[in-house]
Structure formats: C-alpha cells, structure tokens
C-alpha cells in the first residue's frame, strides 16, 4: 500500500517562539539566550502549500543525503526539477526518491548509498519526475 499525505493548504498557523541563538552541538556557547522571533513549522517547511505534498520514506538508499527510513518528505511540484535536485520520480510503476542526474542528454536516478547503483534511464523506461524534495521532518520522541 502506497502512502502519501496531503498537507492542509489552509492549516491554521501556529507561531512558536524561535530562539535565534543556535543550539550548540559542539562546545557550549558563551552567548546569552534570548528569544527573538517566531516560527511556524508549516510556513518554514512549506513555501507553496497548494503545490506541496508529503511522502513517507521507506528504505536506506538516500542515507547519504540524510534521508532516512521513516522520514517524511516535503515535496513541491511548483519547482521545476533540475540536475542535482532530490526528486520523487515514478519509473516503470515504482515510486522512488533519488537524486536527479540530467546532463548531456543522459538521465539517471542516483541513490545516495553505495549499496545501490544509479538507475540509468533508457529508452523504453517510463519516467515521470513527480516533484522536488524541499525538506524533510521526523518526530523523535
């Protein structure tokens, strides 16, 4: 069963306090913490709600791009897919997330994991580049 989610285009905004001081993942920062701005998660992840869809990820082929099993991808169809974009692609009945290679008349869907060879698009393959991945999110606890 394929799953997908559609974000609510008119979801109410919920602005939460955003601390502009970065959380240090290295040494503790000597800077004082103070709240400076407000952030809505929808607004941050979804720039064009009308053309944006969410897709859950299955598998490990994009781990090099820090896309992991169980992540939810934010996919925007209003962006024209170009070489180097991470895309949702339909190819021969499969729905994949891969990096798009599109150079010198050659097209391929490239995994970000050495376990998986690039999928070179040949004549006879039915390829649809469905949308461009613009973000991803995950609940951790």
């Amino acid at each position, binding site marked *: 069963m*394929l799953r*997908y989610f*559609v974000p609510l*285009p*008119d979801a109410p905004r919920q602005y939460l306090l955003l601390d502009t001081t970065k959380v240090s993942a290295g040494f503790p920062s000597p800077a004082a913490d103070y709240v400076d701005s407000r952030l809505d998660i929808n607004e941050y992840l979804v720039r*064009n709600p*009308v*053309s944006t869809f969410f897709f859950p990820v299955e598998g490990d082929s994009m781990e090099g791009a820090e896309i992991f099993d169980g992540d939810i991808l934010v996919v925007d*169809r*209003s962006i*024209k897919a170009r070489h180097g974009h991470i895309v949702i692609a*339909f*190819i*021969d*009945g*499969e*729905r994949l997330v891969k990096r798009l290679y599109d150079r010198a008349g050659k097209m391929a869907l490239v995994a970000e994991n050495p376990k998986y060879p690039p999928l070179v698009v040949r004549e006879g393959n*039915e390829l*649809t580049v*469905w949308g461009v991945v613009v973000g991803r999110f995950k609940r951790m606890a």
Partner: protein
Amino acid sequence: MAVFALVDCNNFYASCEKLFAPRLRNRPVVVLSNNDGCVVARSAEVKALGIPMGVPWFKLKDDARRYGIVAMSSNYALYADMSNRVVEVLSAFSANIEVYSIDESFLELSGYENLSGGLTGYGAEIRQRIADWLGLAVCVGIAPTKTLAKLANHCAKKNLAGADGVCDFTTLSPDELSRLFDKIDVGEVWGIGRKIRARLEGMGMTSVRQLRDADAETIRAQFSVVVERTVRELRGVSCLDMQEVVPDKHQIISSRSFLKLLYDRAEVEEAVAS
C-alpha cells in the same frame, strides 16, 4: 464583452488516484462508490473500453480480468483536497470564480482579452499551471456566456474544436461556430436534459445550431423561460451571472445551550428534559 471560462478536470477521481500511484499509469482505472458497489469514475482507458458509469463492480469482473482494470475504493477526502487546490490555483487567474462542482469551476475573464497571448493563451497557461503544480489534466472552454463556455469545454474535451485542451469560442468566426454547432447534439447543451432533448427532437431540433436559431418566444411558450435563456446564451447574450462563492466552512459545530442564563435547579431540569 463578458467572457467566461469553464475549467473542468478530466476524469477527476480516477486522475487523483493515478496521481499518487505509478503502477496505475496507462492502466484502466475505475473508482467505486462506498462499499465498492458501483463505478463512479472512469479513467480515459476505461472510457475507451466502452464501460459505462454506474455499473456494479461485480458485473465487471470478467472485463476486469480481460483488460486488467484496477478498481479503487473512493477516497473523498483526497478528491476534496485536490479540488480545493485546483480552486486555489485558479484563484490566481481570476478574481471572480464560481465553484460549480468538485471538478468544475467558472472563471470570469471579462477584461482579460487584451492580455498578450489573448484569452486562448491564458487558457493554456491555466491548463499548464494545474498540470505542473497538481499533476491533473484539465480542459478549458472560453466564451462570452456561461452556457457557451460549457459547450466550448465539451469541444475541448472531445477535440471538436480548439487545441491542446483549450477551446476559445471568441476566436471562431460566426460561420465556424455555426458549422461546429451543426455537429453537436443538442443534448450536450448545459441545461438540456433528457426530457427536454426528447421534446426538442419531436419538434425537429437535434443539433445545437437548431436550438440556437430557434424562435425564442416559441421556446419560452413550449418550455420555460429557463430554456429561452439557454437559447439567448447560445447566441452569445450573457444571461447567467457568476454565483457568489460561499467561503468554505472551517468548522461545523452542533452544540446545545440555554436560551438565557438559568439560575435555579428546576429551570435547568425543565430545559434539559425536553
């Protein structure tokens, strides 16, 4: 001059299902009513097989096996979401939109004639935007009245006139329109149902052209002022305005409360008892 466009999604429910499921590409797909009873939507491939609307699914089992028809349970939440998105995209193209059904909207385009590319180009742009952003195919009919815009949409869909899913009656000469209307059955006209069509046929009118050129007074006497209005609309006289769009309800609440503040127990008991 008034100008209207009718934008209609092709095979809407089936297209929504295909959008997310790559294995359905190029396959005949039907969408079934609640509890998977009857066919409520058909993809282009299913229409090409000549399978009609409303057939109970169990009667299609043989066809399904032979042609590899895929049946999907209806998912109205998805269709409603995609429909809202279509309307949202359309609202960038006109300030005045009438959502006529889940897969059809009228746009008022009066005053848009002088855009570079003209109305036809504008229609093509609408079609392209919905294809890019939503992955859905639409047809666009453009004309000086809503009834004609509906008919232009029919022509776009059936490839009778126009090109690439856009049919703009404002670019056709009176002669071209007459010849086109000769070819179209009067039953295709918006508001001409089966009964009226049968009576028109009894009066010798089977084509759109014959209805358009019928005597309006006679039509009113024989049918109604509504059908007369249809005749005038077919002649390019706009009689039907855009209907106000009612904004979506954001919530529906069913709640019970007292008419006035109650202070003693007996009053409260009386109020909740009934």
